[in-house]
């Protein structure tokens, strides 16, 4: 009896759905911890739903780690979302390669490139096909604590070369100040050092050649030199005590409490360190930002940037309405609001000038002047090789591998892929 009525009800519900030709677009995002970011999503969705009869957009949020773990299963099930958040890089390539994503048609791509960031769209493309729209731009740079720099009598903004940086690290060490805080247990904060040095040494072409397995892949003198330069820094013992037992969240809290002169981290650290610090973190006027310095004889430029390129991509069964919504969701209006409210640094070119936050503005400028934007290496090279990059970065920092061994380990993993 009960079953029968249940079946009847569902028939009615289905019939009602068909009658209104309702289309539901399900969006799966990672958690947006900042209230303003979440609010932005909710407002955009509400606005879109109000303006489009017969289309209902639902946004769901999931914590980062469970998102990563559930997504592979979710994509293969009937409960797959129509749009989902992507960090791009190796995992995204795998999803595209296995046919789980819906590619945009050429006309749409051409139209979107007019308004959205072509570079960001390229990050969400694979084998010449485009799968989504970019959202925030993320860049890694060296933060410095102006108060500590003043006490030490140094000016980090004068740093132009890696040797300058090493000199300043020595000054800090001599004055008993921790040069860098780093969350070594997470490994990826350490991989920024190795990545940045590799980029400055080999430049864009060298990196592309490594990825393609040319010039010995990773087992070449450039990668060995990147390791050697990193070891030069490591030998000065630049990190806080016990850095290998600390995760990023704690480390950025130490930095926010004034624990070190420098911090090599992305723009997102502004909010993160203030949330993790014990008394609200460093104020705008205490914070300085410089790009990672150039290296002598290196082919990379100081204006080459390392960072993220995240956005939302379409799954293979996504309806056309999802494409329309995606354009609105990641579009100019939303990104301009994000820029002016300081929620994130937008990728849409017309919005980047609107960033008002004095600190984020410096990152927007670094991103705007970028001569070559490299996706985080641990994502760019996929989860396996990327994982090994994180491993060897940590091992170089603890002195467990030589630069030569690190390069060989990377090449061995690449060759296996």
């Amino acid at each position, binding site marked *: 009896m009960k079953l029968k009525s249940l079946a009847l009800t569902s028939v009615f519900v289905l019939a009602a759905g068909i009658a209104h030709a309702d289309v539901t677009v399900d969006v799966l995002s990672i958690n947006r911890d900042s209230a303003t970011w979440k609010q932005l999503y909710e407002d955009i969705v509400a606005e879109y739903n109000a303006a489009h009869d017969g289309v209902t957009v639902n946004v769901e949020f999931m914590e980062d780690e469970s998102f990563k773990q559930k997504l592979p299963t979710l994509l293969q099930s009937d409960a797959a979302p129509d749009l989902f958040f992507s960090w791009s890089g190796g995992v995204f390539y795998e*999803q595209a390669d*296995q046919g789980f994503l819906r590619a945009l048609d050429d006309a749409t791509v051409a139209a979107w490139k007019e308004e959205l960031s072509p570079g960001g769209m390229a990050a969400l493309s694979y084998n010449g096909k485009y799968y989504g729209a970019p959202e925030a731009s993320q860049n890694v740079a060296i933060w410095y604590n102006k108060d500590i720099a003043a006490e030490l009598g140094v000016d980090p903004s004068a740093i132009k070369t890696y040797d300058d940086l090493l000199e300043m690290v020595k000054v800090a060490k001599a004055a008993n100040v921790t040069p860098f805080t780093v969350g070594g247990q997470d*490994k990826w904060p350490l991989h920024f050092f190795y990545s940045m040095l590799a980029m400055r040494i080999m430049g864009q072409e060298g990196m592309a050649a490594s990825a393609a397995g040319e010039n010995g892949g990773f087992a070449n003198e450039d990668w060995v030199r990147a390791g050697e330069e990193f070891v030069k820094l490591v030998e000065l013992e630049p990190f806080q005590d016990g850095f290998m037992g600390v995760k990023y969240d704690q480390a950025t809290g130490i930095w926010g409490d004034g624990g070190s002169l420098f911090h090599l981290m992305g723009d997102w650290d502004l909010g993160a360190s203030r949330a993790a610090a014990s008394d609200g973190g460093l104020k705008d006027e205490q914070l300085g930002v410089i790009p990672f310095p150039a290296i002598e004889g290196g082919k990379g430029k100081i204006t080459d940037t390392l960072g993220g390129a995240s956005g939302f991509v379409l799954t293979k069964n996504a309806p056309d309405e999802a494409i329309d919504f995606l354009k609105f969701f990641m579009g100019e209006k939303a990104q301009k609001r994000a820029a002016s409210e300081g929620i994130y640094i937008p990728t849409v070119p017309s919005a980047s000038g609107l960033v008002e936050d004095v600190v984020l503005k410096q990152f927007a400028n670094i991103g705007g002047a970028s001569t070559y934007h490299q996706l985080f290496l641990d994502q760019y090279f996929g989860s396996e090789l990327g*994982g090994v990059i994180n491993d060897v970065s*940590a091992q170089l920092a603890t002195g467990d591998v030589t630069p030569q061994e690190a390069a060989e380990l990377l090449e061995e993993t690449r060759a296996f892929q």
Partner: protein
Amino acid sequence: MLVSEGVAAAPPRESAFQRMMANGQLKMVLIFVPPAILIFTVFVILPMIQAGLFSPYKWSGYGPVPWALNEDTGRTFGRWIGTTNFERMMSHSAFKQSLVNTLLVIGVSIAIQLPLAMTLALMIYRSSRINTVFRLIFFLPYVMAEVATGLIFSFVLDGNYGLSRSFADLMGWEKAFFPLAEKPWAFYCILGVIVWKYFGFHMMIFIAGLQSISSEVLEAAKIDGAKTLQSVFLIKLPLLWPSITISVFYAVLGGLQVFDLVMPMTAGGPSNSSHTLVSYLYNFGFIRLNIGFGSAVGVFLFVVGVAFAFLYRNTVQRGQ
């Protein structure tokens, strides 16, 4: 009496089956055995077979199985690579380290944890109120969830605000000690926590064993003039042999499975020096989307576990 009369009255050729029919045992078997077999098959046997089948593939975990054809791409989801996963595993330094670490866990469990548990059991096995209190205290660490224990100790051993800091301040040291960040110490800290957490469990096994030793035997020994140590080594321990073999069995199989303590304490670091076999499997198999490789590690773990259980049952525990 009744039963034996029934058997005598029945025809001489009555089979075991008929006997079970007659006394209702068959009904019990039919009710209880199929669900158990079904659950065991679905949750234990099938995943084991699956891991074995996945292990010769390079597979990211997308698609139902690595050999299935992906209609969207016209290729299979995974790629057959034969024994490569096993070869890579065997030559991987982090795997070797995790194997050494797992052996260390087993060694420490047997050489330190069990003697400690035995000593305490001998001290508090007699029934008395104060002994009950001690048993409860010693057993408490075992009751706590592993992940919670790991988190608690990651705070305790933290050099910024943990006990490690207080200890350094107390001693007047300028620098606090960060044991979980130091390669030589990280895994020993985990070993310490393992001993602390599980000795109570083995102690309970020994207490149960000690309580089942007949007091007459002990009294007789006492009358014959046996000293305390003599009665421990010549009477109690030999009579406890079955309990000890069970404890060792649990210690070894438990040692092969250590995972939940490692993740919150060190996550396998620094530099992959504190992985156990299971945390290695999880990190290099699942986190890095390499299900075929993870399956290969799983197969290795399974073979080691089964080989041990089989050998142990047929040698040490033979006849028990």
